[in-house]
């Protein structure tokens, strides 16, 4: 073996050029990876916000459109700061005509719940009455929760306004994504 004749290895210069190119490529690949992760997260957040907005509007549309009475007093528009739109709404259930009950949509944090309520007086628990009924002493009825279910998530704000035509504006946010959607509903039985 003649070690001094070995010319097969890499020179320092070659190694440095190789490492530089390799690091540059790794940097590009890493930045693409980071971009794709960010893009994935924003896409997922937006998809979830849009999906929840759609679910919320569909559920509300179904209940308000069929309802025979809107128990919540709503402002005519959302422009009067002295009469702002409420964040919850109670409507009479229009799908079960045999049963006098109400559907309440309310926010719990960023979750929207759909609660089914029945009203009755203390001494007559089997007789269902209107939400605004009064007994002979002028007392309001008590309410019983029949069901209480989560309908939508990631809701920052939900507003209801309008008299015959009820407008719902939902603001959702997940991560850095904010999605605002709206629709109007005409109650066919109001």
């Amino acid at each position: 073996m003649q070690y001094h004749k070995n010319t097969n290895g890499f020179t320092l210069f070659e190694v440095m050029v190789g490492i530089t190119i390799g690091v540059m490529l790794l940097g590009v690949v890493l930045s693409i990876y980071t971009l794709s992760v960010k893009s994935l997260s924003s896409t997922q957040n937006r998809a979830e916000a849009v999906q929840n907005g759609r679910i919320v509007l569909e559920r509300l549309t179904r209940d308000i459109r069929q309802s025979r009475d809107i128990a919540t007093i709503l402002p005519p528009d959302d422009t009067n700061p002295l009469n702002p739109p409420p964040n919850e709404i109670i409507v009479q259930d229009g799908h079960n005509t045999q049963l006098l009950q109400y559907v309440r949509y309310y926010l719990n944090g960023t979750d929207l719940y759909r609660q089914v309520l029945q009203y009755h007086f203390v001494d007559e628990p089997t007789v269902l009455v209107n939400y605004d009924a009064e007994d002979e002493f002028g007392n309001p009825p008590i309410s019983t929760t029949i069901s209480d279910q989560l309908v939508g998530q990631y809701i920052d704000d939900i507003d209801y306004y309008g008299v015959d035509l009820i407008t719902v504006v939902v603001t959702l946010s997940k991560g850095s994504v904010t999605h605002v959607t709206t629709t109007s509903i005409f109650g066919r039985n109001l």
Partner: protein
Amino acid sequence: MDTRKHTINTKGIGLIEVVISVTVLAVGLFGLLQAFPHGVQAEKDIEFASIASYLAQAKLEELATLSYDEITPGTLESGAHANSNTDSPFYNFLRTTTVELLDENLTASVTDIGFKKISVVITWPPVLGGEQQTTELVTMISKR
């Protein structure tokens, strides 16, 4: 062991080859990068399409409050802002509502036989340039 002398290494990768392969890789990665703006655009367009269909539905509900005779044939509004407030997220959604009389074959007609077609078109500006995006909802109403 003497044969080692003759094996002069000529099988390595030359600079030209490295440059070519890096260029090919760079072109490929660049092509990959183009996918992200398109992905974001598609996602935004889907969000706007969802909003637009609810805005169109809101207009149909508004017309549902009117009777058959109150809905007059013609263009009810053309390119109206879905919300006239410039701060509103719905300001850039433009709405055109037209009402047409229909005959018994459900084609456009000039005489009123008790059929009307309402179409609501919502347009909104695209996210990354290109053509206006459009969604349309159509319904028919009859005289009762």
